[in-house]
């Protein structure tokens, strides 16, 4: 298990122009604590340059934390980064980080060698990984002829070449089409559930985080501001309820009447029309009152349900709160 506590990272940057530039310390990460269990996928979300990438770089030992502790299966990762490097790997989105003039096989062979993967198993592992990412039959083609999706799939294979216990995925599906993204998401699930790998995932796609992650950390300005499952985060962020009501007949008059009557139960209730839907936002559980009111008013209900807040709504709301 990865346990990182109170991680912080300061960078010294030069500001101003000319020869005599002033040095300034920037706190990219101020205080972040997180845990990653084997077999689980943990999401890292950020608002406004939150420090996601810096956090990943610290966890992958590419950066040394300025403060805090970081243990991987009881080994001090700050003190023994070389030992940690043997047990991890990182996959980033984009088309860099592979040798374009080399073939897919040659790329994987090279990375296998520098990770000291025994030659007796390397060939078989490369073949298995190429099959896993759907590049079997393409292993002897130079990477420069690959499509973006194929290069990204090769990245996934590259990140698994040392059979890492923990995998860090930095926006792995960025720029990929829907089909390839879906395939990659199923690979990621497979790696956690079937191969028992601990995975940290960052993504701008909320649906992806919501679909894959067992637990989510939300960062802002270098600090952890929320954590929990997607459901917990949404419930915790939204203390109001959203109802969707679809009627056989809808008009401005009906909206006004609903608004007026529902405010009798909860003065903060807001009623708005959105296409053929009526959206009702209230701080109270008004589902009973709402159905009763429709019966009284002679409105025939086509559909009525309480809409659970989504992770995306949570992030948007948190983003507005921190910007305010």
């Amino acid at each position: 298990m990865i346990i990182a506590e109170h991680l912080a990272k300061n960078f010294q940057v030069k500001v101003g122009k000319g020869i005599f530039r002033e040095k300034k310390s920037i706190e990219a990460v101020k205080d972040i604590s997180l845990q990653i269990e084997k077999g689980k996928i943990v999401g890292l979300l950020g608002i406004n340059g939150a420090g996601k990438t810096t956090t990943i770089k610290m966890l992958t030992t590419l950066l040394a934390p300025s403060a805090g502790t970081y243990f991987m299966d009881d080994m001090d990762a700050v003190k023994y980064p070389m030992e940690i490097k043997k047990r991890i790997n990182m996959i980033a989105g984009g088309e860099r980080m592979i040798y374009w003039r080399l073939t897919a096989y040659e790329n994987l062979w090279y990375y296998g060698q520098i990770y000291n993967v025994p030659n007796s198993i390397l060939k078989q592992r490369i073949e298995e990984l190429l099959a896993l990412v759907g590049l079997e039959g393409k292993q002897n083609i130079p990477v420069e002829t690959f499509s973006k999706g194929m290069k990204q799939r090769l990245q996934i294979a590259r990140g698994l070449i040392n059979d890492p216990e923990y995998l860090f995925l930095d926006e792995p599906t960025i720029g990929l089409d829907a089909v390839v993204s879906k395939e990659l998401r199923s690979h990621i699930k497979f790696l956690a559930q079937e191969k028992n790998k601990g995975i940290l995932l960052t993504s701008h796609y909320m649906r992806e985080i919501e679909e894959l992650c067992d637990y989510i950390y939300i960062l802002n300005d270098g600090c952890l501001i929320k954590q929990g499952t997607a459901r917990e985060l949404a419930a915790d962020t939204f203390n109001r309820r959203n109802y969707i009501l679809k009627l056989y007949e809808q008009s401005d008059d009906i909206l006004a009447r609903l608004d007026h009557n529902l405010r009798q139960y909860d003065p903060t209730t807001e009623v708005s029309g959105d296409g053929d839907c009526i959206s009702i936002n209230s701080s109270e559980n008004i589902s009973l009152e709402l159905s009763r009111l429709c019966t009284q008013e002679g409105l025939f209900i086509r559909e009525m349900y309480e809409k659970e807040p989504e992770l995306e709504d949570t992030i948007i709301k948190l983003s507005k709160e921190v910007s305010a």
Partner: protein
Amino acid sequence: MRSFVKTFAAEIVKQHKNYFYSKTIYISLFLWPLFSFITTYYSFQVFDLSKSKVPYITAENVVVYLLLGYMCMSLFRCLVQSAWRFSFERFHGTLELIFLSPSNRAAVLLGNAVASLFESVIITVVFTVFMLVLKSEALFFKLLPAVIVFLLVIGMAVVWGMFLNSLFLFSRDTNFLFTVLEEPMEIFSGVKVPIILFPLWAKMIAAIFPLTYAIEAVRRVMLYGSSLYEIRIYLLIGILIMIALLIAIMIILVIVEKHIRVTGNITLF
């Protein structure tokens, strides 16, 4: 050790496949030194070499004298260029992945330098053929000292390449070293002009470059027929330079790794 050897071998294979994808690259490798050699050779023709201040340069052997200089320089230049090429790893993000891995950093540098040696050896062979065809009568050497001195030159060139590679790891802005080291190395190492003719300040600059000692040792063996005993001082200096550079490389690698982990500049390109 096994890990070191695997990384070293993988780096050689990777760099060779990555940069020597086309045979036309060998043509470009020869053209520049060849043009430079021709220019220098005809520059010498305007002087009366029978009155040369340098006793071992004569009108008969000036071609070989220059060819030996250019051969050694080409060896070193290939290694300098290997360091420059290594900076592309930063641009492509692969350097970050090398540092993400537990691979031995010295093995990576050595592999990268030795990969360039492949092209260097081919250049050496071509220059040798040139010499034998043009002026074999000017060559006066014993086999053992010749072999030893060439091995020494290759060793020095590889370690020099590793040293430059290690400096290039510091930041994306170390590319200026390529400009600073490439041309001055050719000017001050005695490739074209004998160092004995240099003023004191230029001799001091020449003393910095390992190529200076390499060229002098090769010329003494190949033109004078000097024995190993007679060039012992150059052998000793060469070995000491290699040891000093290897120690410097190890120290630099430790500093670079710490520097990268503090600044995070490995991702900047």
